[in-house]
């Protein structure tokens, strides 16, 4: 393996506490509350013990519904990300704290300030995962309603981030220079009320996979949180594409890290890998309901399908597969849900993940524990030591800020 792009790279881990949706198993007796504060405390302490770079919270500003009724099969309900992370800042010393926050349903004056506050309270460990959301119905919870099409969302997002940076930069401790903007998106005047933290600005993550989203990240972000976390060739193609865009934006190619979201199943022996991975998948495709709907009754035209594909064609293909194999609906879903992420023994996984970061497929992994609060234990107790044996994982936190953990350059507007 002499042709590795980054032969000395180390694996970076974040923990993506999803808390909601189907990836989190709730039916197992070991599954704890998604809301109890002890769950968060236990997870983040485990993460910090394992020298993880960051604890990451997602965001959804409206509960998922189907035909006007709340979707009831998956875990639902979670705390406000920035508020929860502020509490966790008070209980931890080193780990980064990443809040997913939407630019479509927030105001820069408020959000820039809350992020800067977390950054100061945590001693320079805050990050903002910038998202735009992909729907209009979330807007029904907000003053300005559902608005902005896809391209405008990213335009607003970029102006939002730039404005936030200007606000963060305008604090000088003795004089206030209010930041003015009148660009059609933001006609505002904002003065800073929060000093800068030891890391200068919160680290900027971006999550959104379209070309527009990737270009926005190439110009504005420090890290991309992607969904390319299962197949190394797919991840490498994505990372190469990001590097191209980053260079085109006039930045060094390694200026934007890639952090795919993923899942890691650690098995004790090689013989147990398949069985454990299958168990996880079965639990995630919702616990078996008492009634299993019959395929013929399902109308394939409803609901969102994958972007760019004809939902009818997908439905027809699935129907064909189901009839051929005599699958129940649930069996079909299991069949079409390709396994996400990684499964293996600690030693297999350590080799694989090391290859990922050293070949340039990703800078690290944002791991979703499929069980809370114990879902990180295997990773911290088994995988981390295996990586350390390969010199592919740090043995101590190198600094105190998230920017230092990730080896990032100073904030974009604060470079000489």
């Amino acid at each position, binding site marked *: 393996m002499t042709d590795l792009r980054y032969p000395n790279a180390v694996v970076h881990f974040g923990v993506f506490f999803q808390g909601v949706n189907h990836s989190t198993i709730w039916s197992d007796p070991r599954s704890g509350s998604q809301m109890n504060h002890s769950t968060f405390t236990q997870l983040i302490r485990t993460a910090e013990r394992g020298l993880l770079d960051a604890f990451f919270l997602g965001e959804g500003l409206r509960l998922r519904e189907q035909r006007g009724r709340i979707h009831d099969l998956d875990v639902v309900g979670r705390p406000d990300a920035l508020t929860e992370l502020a509490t966790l800042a008070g209980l931890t010393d080193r780990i980064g704290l990443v809040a997913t926050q939407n630019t479509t349903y927030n105001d820069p*004056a408020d959000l820039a300030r809350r992020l800067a506050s977390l950054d*100061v309270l945590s001693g320079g460990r805050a990050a903002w995962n910038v998202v735009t959301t992909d729907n209009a119905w979330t807007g029904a919870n907000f003053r300005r309603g559902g608005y902005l099409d896809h391209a405008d969302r990213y335009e607003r997002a970029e102006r939002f981030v730039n404005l936030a940076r200007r606000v963060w930069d305008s604090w000088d401790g003795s004089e206030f220079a209010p930041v003015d903007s009148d660009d059609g998106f933001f006609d505002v005047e904002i*003065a800073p009320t929060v000093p800068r933290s030891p890391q200068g600005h919160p680290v900027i993550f971006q999550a959104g996979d379209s070309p527009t989203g990737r270009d926005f990240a190439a110009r504005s972000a420090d890290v991309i949180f992607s969904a390319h976390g299962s197949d190394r060739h797919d991840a490498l193609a994505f990372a190469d594409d990001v590097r191209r865009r980053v260079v085109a934006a006039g930045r060094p190619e390694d200026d934007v890290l890639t952090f795919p979201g993923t899942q890691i199943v650690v098995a004790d022996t090689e013989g147990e890998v398949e069985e454990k991975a299958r168990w996880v998948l079965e639990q995630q495709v919702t616990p078996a309901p008492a009634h299993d709907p019959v395929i013929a009754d399902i109308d394939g035209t409803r609901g969102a399908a994958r972007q760019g594909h004809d939902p009818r064609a997908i439905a027809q293909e699935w129907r064909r597969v189901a009839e051929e194999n005599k699958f129940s609906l649930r069996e079909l879903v299991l069949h079409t849900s390709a396994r996400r992420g990684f499964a293996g023994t600690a030693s297999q996984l350590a080799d694989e993940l090391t290859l990922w970061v050293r070949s340039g497929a990703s800078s690290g992994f944002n791991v979703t524990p499929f069980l809370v609060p114990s879902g990180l234990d295997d990773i911290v107790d088994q995988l981390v030591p295996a990586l350390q044996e390969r010199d592919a994982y740090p043995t101590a936190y190198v600094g105190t800020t998230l920017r230092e953990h990730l080896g990032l350059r100073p904030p974009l507007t604060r470079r000489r």
Partner: protein
Amino acid sequence: MPPPFHVFLDVDGGGWHPAAWRRSRVSPDAVFSPARLKEFAVTAQAQGLTGLTFEDSTLPDPRNPHGHLDAVQRAAFLAGTTDTIGLLPVAATTYSEPFHVAAQIASLDHSSAGRAGWIATTSTPAVARTVNLPVLDDPQAELTDVVGAVRRLWDSWEDDAVVRDVATGRYVDRDRLHHVDVVATNFSVKGPLTVPRPPQGQPVVAAHERDLLDPGVVDVVLTGSERTRRSAGGPLVVLEVEFALDTAAASGAQRVEALDADAPAPARGRLRWTGSGEGFARYLSGLAGSVDGVRLHAAVLDEDLRTLLRTTFPALRVARLLRPPAAGATLRTTLGRPRPVNQFATA
């Protein structure tokens, strides 16, 4: 036993006086220090105070070059390292999103195991400019609407909505989750909230008398007047007192005068008290029985807190006016406010 009396201490920056940061024992930027905030919280809790409050403003004071960290963030930062004291951040109702405010205070209530409060305020028109919203001609009406919307959002999950029913595969009982369908003059909210019902059901809501059209919408009325009295069955009345105590070097009044010379303090609708620490204890004892408590704002936190700890609080303890909240009690329980029935309850 004297009637319950609640002492709240505000911890914002250097103190209520805009020149306070110049007198702090720490450097100007250190008024933002998280370690210092923790120290205040631990001290206040050990003294048996009912709550910490967190004043806030999203606008800088041009004469006073220190700002504020976001109040909800500060309160949340202390939630995991305290266990009996209430945490009551200020969050504005005007020019903010009711949905975000509801989610933030609900989260604070979850992470503090039921010790969250919310001081709902109205903002000056200058704040409208920071978010490009039209200036409201009736901020009090907006406060009423926003508090109402937030309360519906807190109730939008019934207490037992999470059923984890393995047999049917249902995580929640969706009949116990509710759209709030609020349509107010300046906003609408669909709901439900993305955060499950807070442990207190409804976190404690406080607002200043001048911002309230109807005191019935809050649990605690903040007032700057000694004459305000609690009405039967009405909200608690808490007197806002900004104070400056005598030190070895200068009297409280002289200290305020010297601070005013640096930066004159604006009138904020609070009572002003200056004098000795013992005198302050006597003054506060005299209030017990006519109001339910006080919210104390120190002129210079570093200086005045020292005197409070040495003289005022010990005297209040002797008078049985400083009674620590019981272990595990919610802020509501400490304040003697029953846990409200959910307005959507179907059971």
